[in-house]
């Protein structure tokens, strides 16, 4: 009895230790970087900064290059998501609800396009971009970011559409609802959590995309992540910390919006080919 109690205590300590280590592993780097945004100076090996300041924030907000990058990011990503929805959602509906010829090939083609190393694709795409005059253009950047969203915007909603029970729709039809009403009030509504998750994931994919945007957009178009590449090399760590916090805001807001559905399995469901 005593022995069992001891082992129970031991496993509880082990579990708490594990939680603590995971918290340090996951949150530690973020907190450490975040605190730097308010530190005037930080000498190794002091556990605390020499002082607190907001001067790095004004540096970021007053620098026109940073402001432009923030503006670009906030304009480009929503456009990318809207185009992605327009292009992919009908396809997702088809893939989820219709057993058309070549459906499986379609899904696998999207997947294999995703498994080519991105950096290699960006190197290869330069040729095409020069031929189409897309280098350094807004459209070019939008297309590059669009490529990373397609897999989310087709796969996740496809699974969500497929999961809508057919008998519900049929019952509504039998009760006299028009096809459009059924689609709007039942199909679309039940598939909405999946679509929401797809929108969030696509936004993050576009908002975070750095390497392709840099290759295609520079030197004319900078977004927040591409600005970050040059920033970490040329500015003190505090400026990068401020910029990181700004860059993380949209993601954190979206986390609040879609956390329930993402953890509820909508994302996982989307990645099982059916």
């Amino acid at each position, binding site marked *: 009895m005593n022995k069992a109690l001891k082992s129970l205590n031991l496993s509880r300590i082990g579990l708490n230790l594990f939680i603590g280590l995971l918290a340090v592993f996951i949150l530690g780097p973020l907190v450490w*970087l975040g605190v730097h945004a308010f530190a005037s100076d930080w000498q*190794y090996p002091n556990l605390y900064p020499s002082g607190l300041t907001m001067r790095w924030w004004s540096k970021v907000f007053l620098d026109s290059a940073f402001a432009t990058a923030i503006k670009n990011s906030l304009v480009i990503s929503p456009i990318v998501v809207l185009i992605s929805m327009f292009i992919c959602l009908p396809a997702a509906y088809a893939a989820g609800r219709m057993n058309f010829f070549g459906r499986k090939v379609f899904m696998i083609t999207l997947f294999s396009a995703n498994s080519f190393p991105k950096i290699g694709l960006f*190197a290869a*795409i330069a040729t095409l971009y020069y031929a189409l005059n897309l280098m350094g253009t807004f459209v070019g950047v939008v297309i590059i970011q669009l490529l990373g969203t397609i897999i989310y915007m087709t796969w996740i909603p496809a699974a969500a559409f497929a999961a809508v029970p057919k008998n519900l729709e049929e019952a509504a039809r039998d009760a006299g609802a028009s096809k459009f009403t059924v689609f709007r009030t039942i199909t679309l509504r039940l598939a909405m959590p999946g679509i929401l998750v797809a929108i969030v994931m696509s936004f993050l994919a576009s908002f975070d995309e750095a390497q392709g945007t840099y290759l295609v957009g520079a030197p004319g178009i900078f977004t927040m992540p591409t600005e970050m590449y040059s920033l970490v090399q040329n500015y003190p760590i505090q400026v990068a910390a401020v910029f990181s916090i700004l860059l993380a805001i949209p993601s954190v807001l979206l986390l609040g919006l879609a956390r329930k559905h993402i953890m509820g399995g909508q994302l996982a469901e989307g990645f099982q080919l059916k």
Partner: protein
Amino acid sequence: MISLRSKKSKEGSLTTHGGGPSPRSLVGLALSLPPLLIVLIFVGLPILIGLTFSLGFTTGPNRVIAIIGQQIHKKNHWWGTLGAYNDVIHDSRFFGDLRLTIFVTVLSTTLVLLLALAIALYQRLIGGRKAAVLVTLSIVPLFVPVVISAWAIHTFYGGDGFMRTFFTHFGINFPTLTSTPSAIVIGTVWTSLPFAILMISSGLQAIPDALIESAKDCGASVFRVIANILIPLAKTPIIIAASFTSIGILGSFTIPLFLGPNQPTMLGVEISNFFGAYNRPQQSLVMAFIVFAIASGIAVLYVRSNIKSAKESGRL
């Protein structure tokens, strides 16, 4: 089993006409065309053109890049030349890079899977508040842009980072991990954990309680329940998690760029170096194709496992 499908779809019976594609099938195909075309034009076509360039086709669309680039091999057979492939294979750097890439991919994928399995199993079998804390913690990286996470980890494990700062106060000289392969592993595990957790935990949640309870009633230990019921039944999500994680790590760029050593480095960084800094686009593409070949091998596992599970559950 095919008959099962057509019986379920109401429209199927309405539109059966002599073997040809049904109108509904054509609609489906038409709806799926836009994303397919985008992918074919902006992914398929560049890869195809890139393949011809890597084989020494230096005219047509490859003319400009062949003029700008250095150490270009021109084709000497009707099918091209393997000159650039030969360059890469005989480049001493390449094998160091390849070894590091495979080492990181295998080690990080294993660590991610073990961590995700442990947390997801704990959540499935015991649950409660602590399980929720563990899962929530592991999802956090999903919402942090890679550039930030790479930079945050860089500063955390760097020469004047938190780990060294903290441990000096206990008289321990914690090693500087930034710019070593260990930092790449830390970074890739950090960024890959959320997807693996989501996949595996949703797979485990789908297993009915009754199965676990009845096994326990028959006297099965927790380990037998895990090994003989939970893991086999969640095999498909586990394989999906494994393949997406490893393919993602294989082609990763930002993490090894910020966290890894200069030499050897992972192939993702080397592809970019060869394309940009060294101006050797042909060799750069050759490396991309080598990474793609490895990724395709993993992708086959993924597709096969999916098809198998679809067959088992009667969807195919």
